[in-house]
Every structure is written in structure tokens, then in C-alpha cells.
């Protein structure tokens, strides 16, 4: 199996609202603003859009966004499952749509008031009991108080620390990197507010071994990306960020955030599945990647992602990080927008937009000689990833 749409499509436009803690606006307002901004960035009249892809937990139906955008006809629309795990999945599906001819211009978007309305970090504590499979799956964790995303991830983190000797300081170093990039990104919530490892170690426990500064923000805001074929993208306003490949993955005995029953729980096999597909279909390898957006809802799962993509050996991400390789001058600067800890938590889409800027050469934290950028999506859930490349 190989992905036939490798190098076929491109991200031609990016658009976002300001990222805030209390937008004072509806998510629909923000979805429409971000989509219009992405079209304007690309120089495409919105009425040309005929495909829309979003992902679960999205509360703004594509038909309503389309109505507000003035889009008359949609020939492709889909909802990709598993929340942040689908951040690159929406791009993969958009690629499939434009590769197959189902649509010409596809908007992918995420919009919410995740801080001022329903707080995402509160988890599933209010879910009533029921008999359906999703509800039943929570019966194996919620009655014991394991109800928040932080707690679900913390279970993996403790085991990872036990097996590989990683420490909470290693998690903290990821946070320090994110905040250092955020500090020089005026668009980031934590602009001009870097942290030290000591700040991290002094921050309060959320769910041990996770501290406050291991957890991403909750954000009000929206991000949209416009996908079309690389050919069509050439005729638009911006340099295309060619999608070398984009893939989804769910692996053996996969559960939503709680795949605790596998022989080993220190790797992320679904991310390994994405890595395999990306590298195989694009012909690229870890050596070809200059910078990456590594999904950072919680810092501990950044480590096994680095391992799954082959930037270091299994269990050695802590050493890779201690050696400074994620920093500005390191081997693989990550999350140059500040990541979801530093910039905003738009379920990964804002990170992909940063990947596009790195290809264009317009990031506020531009890395030199960027040829290929890796972006990953939410971990512990079925996930996805993509590689953006320079147009040839």
C-alpha cells in the first residue's frame, strides 16, 4: 500500500482569528473569519470553495460555515474522527478529495471557545452513563476518577519514565522550548513570556507526573487551511506548501486516549504507522526534515513521537532533548510558533499553519534552509501526520 496522492496537493492559504482566552464572539463567527482569511491569503474568492473537511468535536457544521462564506455548492464534505488526532487527517482527506476530483478547493477548519465556553481540559466528568460503545468505553476509567485528558496522558508518562529513566525535567524541557519560541511570536498567547526549567518544576501538579506547564492552553479562536492541487496552487497568490504526504493511523488494540492494554505502552504505534506511510510514500526520511511541529497537548508524548519518526532511538528522546536538539539552533527545532503550550491550542491546525510559514519562509522564528517540515497530530488517540515540502 502506498499513498498515491504524495506531492499532488498543497496548502495554498492559511487564516486565523486572534487567539484569546475570551473571544466574546461565537465560534461560528470565528470559523467564518478564519476561512475567509485563508481564502484571502490564497487570493481565492470563497465561492470557489467546493470542499470542506473538519474533525470531531467541531461544533460549527460545514453547511453553516459554507452558507456564511457564500459557498453555494459543496461536492465534498467530511468529518474526521478523534478530535486533535485528526489535525493532519483533515489534510489527508482534503488531499484525497482533490486527488480524486471530488473537489477543487477544500477548506479545513477548527473554531471554538474552548476556554470561555466549554473547557476542554475538564474532560468527561459530566458524561451520563449509557449503553453505547463510546459510553461503555468510559466505564473502564471514569468511575475511578480518570476523567481528564491530562490524566489519560499521565498514565503513559509514568510508565515511560519508569522504563526509560526520563524525568519530569525532560518533559519540562519541551515546555521551555515551546515558550521560548512563543516569546518571540507576537501572535502567541505567551508572547514575551519565556519560562525556565525551574518555573516548570515549580508549577503545580495537575495530574502527577504532569505539572501545569506540561499542559497546553485552552484557547478561544479559529484556524483554517485551504488545500488544492499543487498545480492549481501555482496560480494562487502564495508560494504553495506542497503536501509531500499526509496519513492517518490507528493501531492494534487502539482505544480513545487510553490504549493501556497493549504489550507496551511507551511507544505510539499509531504514530509509527503514520511515519511509515509518510516516509514510504514521500521517499523522505528523518534526515530530510529540518523542523517539525510535534503535537504537544501534553509534553510527555512529544518524546515517543520523536522516537516513532526516527529522530532518535526508542527511549533516547530524553537524551536528544537534553542535548538541546529541539531548540532554535538544534538539530530539529520544534513548534516554532510556540506550540500549543505557547501559541494556542487549536487542536493542531495552528501548528500546520506554522509549517506552511516555514515553507514560505515567513515564520517569525524562521529556520534556515527549510526543505521539509513534519507536522503531527494529537497523540493517544488515533492520529495523523504530514510532511510539507518546498515546491520544485
Amino acid at each position, binding site marked *: 500500500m502506498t499513498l498515491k496522492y504524495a506531492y499532488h496537493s498543497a496548502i495554498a492559504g492559511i487564516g486565523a482569528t486572534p487567539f484569546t482566552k475570551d473571544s466574546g464572539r461565537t465560534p461560528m463567527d470565528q470559523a467564518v473569519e478564519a476561512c475567509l482569511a485563508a481564502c484571502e491569503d490564497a487570493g481565492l474568492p470563497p465561492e470557489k470553495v467546493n470542499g470542506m473537511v473538519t474533525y470531531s468535536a467541531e461544533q460549527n457544521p460545514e453547511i453553516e460555515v459554507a452558507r456564511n462564506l457564500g459557498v453555494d455548492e459543496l461536492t465534498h464534505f467530511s468529518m474526521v474522527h478523534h478530535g486533535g488526532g485528526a489535525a493532519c487527517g483533515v489534510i489527508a482527506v482534503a488531499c484525497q478529495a482533490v486527488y480524486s476530483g471530488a473537489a477543487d478547493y477544500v477548506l479545513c477548519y477548527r473554531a471554538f471557545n474552548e476556554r470561555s465556553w466549554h473547557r476542554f*481540559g*475538564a*474532560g468527561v*466528568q459530566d*458524561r*451520563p*452513563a*449509557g*449503553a*453505547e460503545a463510546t*459510553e*461503555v*468505553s*468510559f*466505564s*473502564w*476509567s*471514569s*468511575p*475511578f*476518577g*480518570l*476523567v*481528564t485528558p491530562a*490524566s489519560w496522558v*499521565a*498514565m*503513559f508518562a*509514568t*510508565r515511560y519514565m*519508569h522504563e526509560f529513566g526520563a524525568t519530569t525535567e525532560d518533559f519540562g524541557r519541551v515546555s521551555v522550548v515551546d515558550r521560548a519560541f512563543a516569546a518571540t511570536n507576537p501572535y502567541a498567547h505567551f508572547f514575551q513570556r519565556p519560562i525556565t526549567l525551574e518555573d516548570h518544576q515549580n508549577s*503545580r*501538579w*495537575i*495530574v*502527577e*507526573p*504532569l505539572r501545569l506547564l506540561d499542559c497546553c492552553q485552552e484557547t478561544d479562536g479559529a484556524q483554517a487551511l485551504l488545500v488544492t492541487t499543487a498545480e492549481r496552487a501555482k496560480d494562487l497568490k502564495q508560494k504553495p506548501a506542497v503536501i509531500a504526504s499526509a496519513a492517518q493511523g490507528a493501531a492494534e*488494540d487502539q*482505544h480513545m486516549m*487510553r490504549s*493501556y*492494554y497493549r504489550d507496551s*505502552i511507551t511507544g505510539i504505534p499509531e504514530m509509527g504507522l503514520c511515519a511509515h506511510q509518510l516516509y514510504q510514500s514521500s521517499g523522505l526520511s528523518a534526515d530530510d526534515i529540518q523542523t517539525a511541529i510535534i503535537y504537544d497537548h501534553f509534553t510527555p508524548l512529544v518524546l515517543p513521537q520523536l522516537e516513532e519518526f526516527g529522530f532518535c532511538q526508542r527511549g533516547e528522546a530524553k537524551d536528544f532533548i537534553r542535548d538541546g536538539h529541539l531548540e532554535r539552533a538544534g538539530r530539529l527545532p520544534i513548534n516554532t510558533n510556540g506550540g500549543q503550550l505557547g501559541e494556542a491550542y487549536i487542536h493542531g491546525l495552528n501548528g500546520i499553519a506554522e509549517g506552511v510559514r516555514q515553507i514560505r519562509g515567513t515564520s517569525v522564528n524562521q529556520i534556515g534552509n527549510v526543505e521539509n517540515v513534519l507536522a503531527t497530530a494529537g497523540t493517544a488517540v488515533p492520529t495523523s501526520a504530514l510532511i510539507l515540502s518546498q515546491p520544485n
Partner: protein
Amino acid sequence: MSDEMTDAQKEAFAAKLRREVGNTGTPTTARDPVNQPMIRHWCDAMEDANPLYTDPDAAKRGPHQEITAPPAMLNAWTMIGLVPRVSDPEDPASGVYAMLDEAGYVGVVATNSEHVYHRYLKLGDHLTGVVKLVDVSDEKQTALGIGHFVTTETEYHDQHGNHVGSMFFRILKFRPGTGRTAGAIDGDSTTERPPRPRPSRNQNTDFFWQGSRGGELRIQQCLDCQRLQHPPGTRCPGCGATNMGHTVACGKGALYSYVVAHHPRVPSFDYPLSIGLVELEEGVRLVSNITDCGPDQLKVGMPLEAWHMQTHEDVSLPVFRPARLPRNLTTLAFDDVNVGDELPLCPIPLTPTLIVSTAIASRDYQDVHHDRDMATKKGSEDIFMNILTSSGLSARYVGDWAGSDAVFKNLKIRLGAPNYPDDCMTMSGSVTAKREADGEAIAEISFQGRNSRGPHVTGTVDVALPRA
């Protein structure tokens, strides 16, 4: 009573209580010599399986060459027993207790017990104890109530007049209903807590919840290839069969991973909340709570055992506590023990049977240890464990770790939160010093037993260990 007393009256009352301080009472000779039935009764109640106390053959091979009494029984032998319940009016300590009773300080709890053992007691030893009144405190406000601490020292001699041991002992006599936390110990936080999230269930998973309601930990099993699966599915991932049944897990497992939740707080739970991923001996894992130990006591790999916590009228959850490890059959050598070594955690479920049987086995017939109505009348929430049992269980804990040939030189404990029924006390401890004295190699163990309210017993013990 004393709240109506002026300061001057209080001082006068305290002076009266202290009149006999420094004086000793009439010697009390034990009703029976050290004997096997009482020892056996004690060992059964305390679940102390050290064979040196009950098995003549094992005892012959041990450090004392014959049956000895558990050293923590020291003050059990001279306990007054159920009848006759008369107290010697000349006895200074009894006199103070009587004065306090009369003044309304009818509540009683022991707070400190410090044994020193000069030698282990053998069958036929006949003890005499002499009690000296050492101190009566000023009136104090305590968590239990307003009262006075009374301190005594007892010297024990055998029938030949040889000094075999001594005990420093302190009790609190208090006025019921005057506690700082009167009525609030078990208060609002627990009673008004909403129930935990109800487990969602359907035809595929009912077997699990039916099992846990009945105290069984059931794991789905393929009836064709016997493979186990958790969480349950509709089909066997091994052979594809749809013929699914279940097995009953033995309830033993080990902690595979864990988290300690602090924020956000869901009102149904106590925080910090320990949640573990438990790997059962049968090989499958499940998420559960780790109860009866502190978050700082959690360690990947620690042995666990299941129990069932009722959370709704029709729901019980399988949860886990540290497992009680088997008794160490090879006595630790002094040179193999290091300062900082930790003793394994040991849970002691506090059943009413344990509290009553151990009180009786230690010949402590105080009604507060077996009669709930009397206990509440005297200011307790329920019957509670007596201090001899706290000593006995502490000794069992250290002895089970050190091995049967370890010789106790002393046992010092201080009590805090009472051990009420239907709780669990978990023992923990570590080696805090090593020294050689009088030709003996001594390890000092510091230990603590915590229940859901906090530390019940905190103490130290010196044990003499064999050389390698």
C-alpha cells in the same frame, strides 16, 4: 464541669490529681502465668504466624530454644481482666482515673506505649507489675475533647524477682463532646459527596459489573481458546470466536503505571486521587484506584490485591490496595540490612472482628473496644482498636519483615487517629539506624500505620538481628 471552673479551681483540681505523682501502687500479680492458650489466642487475633510463639519444634531451633510469648504481650499478662472489676483505692494511678471519671472525664484513649524488653517471657513465667504515677498534665484541649494526660511507668518482674521489662504508658481522660472536631470528623465532605460516575454498561459488559457487585473480579475469556481480554469485546481477538465467557481473577496483581490527580477536582472524589493501571496475575490490565496508601507510596511494580468498593446501591468497583506479602521465612542478617531500606507496605483491614478479638486477646475489656453504644456514649464514633493491639500489629509487621529470629529489644508507639471499624490501616516503615550494643547487632525500624483519617500509630522498634 471544668468549663464552669475558674482558673483557680482548675489549678486546684490539677493539684489534687497530682497529689500522688511519684508514688507507686500495690504490685499486681498476673492471674495466670505465661501460658500457651493466651499466646495462641493473641497470635490468632493478631494474625501473627511467627512459629516461635506456638510451635515447640520451631521454637527449640530458635534464639530462645523454647516457646516464648510475643514480646508485645508484656502488659497483657497483668491486665485486670473482666472480673473482678475493682480498683485499689490506694493505687495512685487508679485513684487519678477515678477522680477524673467522677469529674466527667469518662472518655479514655491510650496515646503512648513504650515497652522495653529485658528478656522474652517463657511459659510458666509469672509476672508482677508495679505502676508508678509519673505525671498528670494540665487540662488540655485535644481533638477528642478537653482532658488530662495521665502518665505511668510499670516495672515487670518474674516470680524470682528478676526484672523482665518495663512500660511507659500515657492515656488521655477526656470529657465526651468537647472535642475540636466533635461531630465533624466524618462530616460534610464525605456525606454530601455526589456518587462517582456510574459505569456505563450493556450486554457485552454486564458480566463484569454483576461480578464486582458480588465481590468477583471477572475478566472476559474466550470459551474456545481461553484467551483473556479486557476491556471486553464482542469477539475473541485471538481466534475470532464469539463464544465469550469469563474467568474470575484471583485479585492479585502489580502496579504497571499510575497517576495522582490533583486538578480539576470532580466532587465525587477525594484528592489527591491515586489511579493505577493494574496488571493482574492473569496477564490483563485494568484501570482502578489504589487505596489505603499515600500517593508518595506508589511505585511501579508494587504488589496489589483487589477489594470491592460499593459506590452505588447496585454498583461496586474493583479497586486495589497494597498486597500483604507473605511472612519472611529467613531472618534478615544484620549485614544485609541498610539504613534507608524500606519495609514493604502492609494493609490491615480493620474489621469489627479484628478490633474486638484483639481487644479480648489482650485482655482489654474496656467497653469502648467492643460495645458500640458505650463507645459513642463516651465520645467515640464507634468502637476502636486498643493500644495493645496497635503494639501487637506493629510488632507483627516488623517481625514479618525481619523474620522469626529477630529479637525485639523495645517497642515504642504513639497513637493518633483512632482505628475504627470498616477502615484499613496500612503499615509502612524503614530502617533508620544500625548499631552494636552489648554484643548485639541492633537495627532500628521506624514505622507508621495510616488509616483513612491519618496516622494511627507511629513508632520505632529496636530488633537484634543475627550476624550473616
